[in-house]
């Protein structure tokens, strides 16, 4: 494969396509053309993403050529977005589910490629496999058996023929990120490997020294990786040049946090969540901190969704926040009060959030009010991908698979305010409803009890308290 790779290798795909984790290499999680709520469920397709613990990676579908592509534990499956039928599936070495990427390599026929990682063994709750890192990436590794290192695989989207494969140095849960003609992928041993998209050759290999287990962002010839330590040290966000892997800067926040989430980079700013319950904005060119915004809980479930005037993050307790991209000031928040595992997605004027309760919710991005919600059946929802005429949601649990939704012209919107907004009327009414009867009942019960029991008898009842308060203890000279 002697194709010539240009920096615009992926330009053949529509700019608005959801070809990677959170849409593209920037992880902005924003699309302008999409179905608007209300939505309705059109199809459900079973796939093998039923690892309910998801300590082995978070499945996230990507969309290309009318198919939603999901990396299962032992398969890569493409589901037709319009009908929900399986377009194709290829076997995969058992390993963590991580987002795939779709890209077009210019030259040599311009393959539309699907890239995914495989292998790494079973890391679900019943996993026992241990990793044995190798010193450098190699071309070895073959399908059919579970191995404890991951391999990056590129296949032709049309024929599913393997184009190249490259074994990594450890288990990978980041999934590949494609920017221009380069694919970058992280591994649990703290390495980031950059591979040329067309040829599969390793361009550079950088050891960041810590675990890299969240999707890597890329923009303007720089990649941004979150790295965290297994030895109670602070996490970092590291910027590396795409051409040679040279470290541009390393942002190590002043915090007690141990984990950083997946970064997103938009308009010269890198956004990242930390396990101390904060969101940090860092200048993409210098690595200097621009602002910090405090959340109510940990929010390392996914990359912040970023548009021109909004940064949207979701914490693990299910509270959605819209922040000002320039200052980090909180514009609104909405407490869903259900676990949320994946990032939010911005579609038009709505924020879509897949909930652990099995509901998909849409919030008005201007006000933060919930404008639509629908249960998609049994099983926690994980992540969302968006096509021009469909929304695809990954679901785990007993009915693991993908759910496809489309606009519902006959559906109705709702107007639900966040429970974090004080509503004086209902607040007072609920208080009075509870307090008044309860106090009356308790006092009556007390009278009954005290009549039944009579006064207590103490050993020295001849020395009672003084009820006047004008003399006695205060004059006794005691001090405390």
């Amino acid at each position, binding site marked *: 494969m002697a194709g010539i790779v240009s920096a615009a290798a992926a330009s053949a795909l529509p700019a608005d396509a959801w070809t990677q984790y959170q849409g593209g290499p920037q992880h902005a999680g924003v699309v302008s053309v999409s179905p608007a709520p209300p939505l309705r469920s059109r199809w459900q397709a079973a796939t093998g993403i039923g690892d309910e613990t998801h300590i082995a990676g978070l499945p996230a579908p990507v969309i290309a050529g009318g198919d939603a592509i999901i990396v299962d534990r032992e398969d890569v499956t493409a589901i037709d977005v319009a009908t929900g039928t399986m377009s194709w599936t290829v076997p995969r070495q058992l390993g963590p589910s991580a987002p795939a990427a779709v890209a077009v390599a210019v030259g040599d026929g311009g393959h539309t490629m699907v890239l995914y990682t495989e292998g790494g063994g079973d890391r679900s709750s019943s996993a026992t496999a241990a990793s044995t890192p190798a010193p450098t990436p190699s071309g070895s590794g073959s399908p059919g058996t579970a191995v404890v290192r991951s391999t990056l695989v590129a296949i032709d989207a049309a024929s599913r023929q393997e184009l190249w494969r490259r074994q990594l140095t450890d288990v990978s849960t980041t999934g590949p990120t494609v920017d221009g003609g380069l694919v970058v992928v992280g591994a649990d041993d703290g390495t980031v490997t950059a591979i040329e998209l067309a040829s599969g050759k390793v361009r550079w290999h950088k050891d960041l020294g810590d675990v890299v287990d969240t999707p890597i962002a890329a923009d303007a010839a720089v990649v941004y990786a979150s790295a965290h330590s297994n030895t109670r040290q602070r996490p970092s966000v590291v910027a590396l040049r795409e051409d040679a892997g040279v470290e541009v800067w390393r942002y190590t926040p002043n915090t007690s946090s141990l984990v950083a989430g997946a970064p997103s980079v938009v308009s010269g700013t890198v956004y990242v969540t930390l396990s101390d319950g904060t969101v940090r904005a860092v200048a993409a060119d210098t690595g200097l901190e621009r602002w910090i915004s405090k959340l*109510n809980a940990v929010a390392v479930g996914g990359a912040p969704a970023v548009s021109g005037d909004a940064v949207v993050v979701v914490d693990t307790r299910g509270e959605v926040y819209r922040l000002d991209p320039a200052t980090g000031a909180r514009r609104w928040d909405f407490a869903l009060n259900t676990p949320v595992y994946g990032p939010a997605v911005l579609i038009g004027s709505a924020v879509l959030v897949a909930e652990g309760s099995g509901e998909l919710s849409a919030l008005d991005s201007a006000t933060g009010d919930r404008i639509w919600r629908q249960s998609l059946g049994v099983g926690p929802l994980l992540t969302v991908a968006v096509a021009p005429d469909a929304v695809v949601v990954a679901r785990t649990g007993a009915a693991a698979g993908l759910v496809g939704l489309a606009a519902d012209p006959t559906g109705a919107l709702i107007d639900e305010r966040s*429970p*974090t907004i004080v509503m004086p009327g209902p607040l007072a009414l*609920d208080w009075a409803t509870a307090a008044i009867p309860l106090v009356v009942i*308790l006092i009556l019960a*007390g009278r009954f009890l*005290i009549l039944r029991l009579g006064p207590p008898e103490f050993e020295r009842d001849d020395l009672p308290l003084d*009820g006047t308060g004008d003399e006695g*203890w205060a004059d006794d000279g005691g001090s405390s």
Partner: protein
Amino acid sequence: MSSRRKKQQRRPAPSYRAPATPAPAPRKGFLDSIFAPRGPSSVPMPKIRTSITRGVATVLATPALVAAVPVVLMIEWLLRPAFGFQGPFTILGATFAIPPISTSTDVSLASNIFSPVGATGPGAALAPLAAITAFLVVHAAFQALVTTVAVERMRTGAVSAWNVRRAMHVWPVAVAVAVVNLGVLIVANFVQLLGGGIGFVLAVALLVAGVYLFAFAPAISADEELSLPVTMSKAVRAARLPGSNNLTLAVLYAVPSFALLLAPLPGSLIGVNPSAGAWAASILVNVLQMAAVAMFAFRYLAIGASVADAAPPRAGRRG
């Protein structure tokens, strides 16, 4: 209360009560009481069931206390969203709790609301430390007032305005108990670093010890004229009376109280508009917390005469 009854109840000045036992040489600090030999083994400590019944009856038979609960809860709740707190509402379940139950929620709340974003070092601790202090002092005032009302109610069968003035006397002791229990909480946090089951069990044991050793202090202060160190010392000795089952009672109080803070009661979600069910649950829990305060007061009043103001000298120690 009639003036005749008040006169009958007046005790001779200037001494409130004669020492129950010959006063031994005073010791330095209340820690001596922890390590001193135990007191007499035969004490008239009420049974646990009797104590609980008396505590509940005392609080429920005092309408001012029962009515105060929802009012205080509403005021506290309205203040918290103003500082950016969004829940869960169940944290109010420890408003009238005994330290370190109340102390733990004070620390949690102060850290949640007042920790400066992204700051580390001593400077970053100032705001939460000030907030913790404020919360401790306010909740100590609640405990002092409830204790004083309970003591007066049990001693006289009625409640008068006197207890407000007496609560001012008890307040410093309640603050001291909260501060000591703050230390217990800090140690418990370090102990949890041991990890696994051992760390957790030791941490819970420390929190139980905080209740066990100091729960009597406010009642002693409400009932007797003693200095702060002597009050704390006497609380420890009262707790350690053999055969009193105080440790059992401390476990029975502390463990469910902590569990209640974590339980999925109504109001355990994020939100600032608690439902009627959440209000009802919080009111009930706080009435029970008040009853626990009254219960410890009742138990102390029952055995106060058997507890010396100072620890007996250790065997082998001269002088």
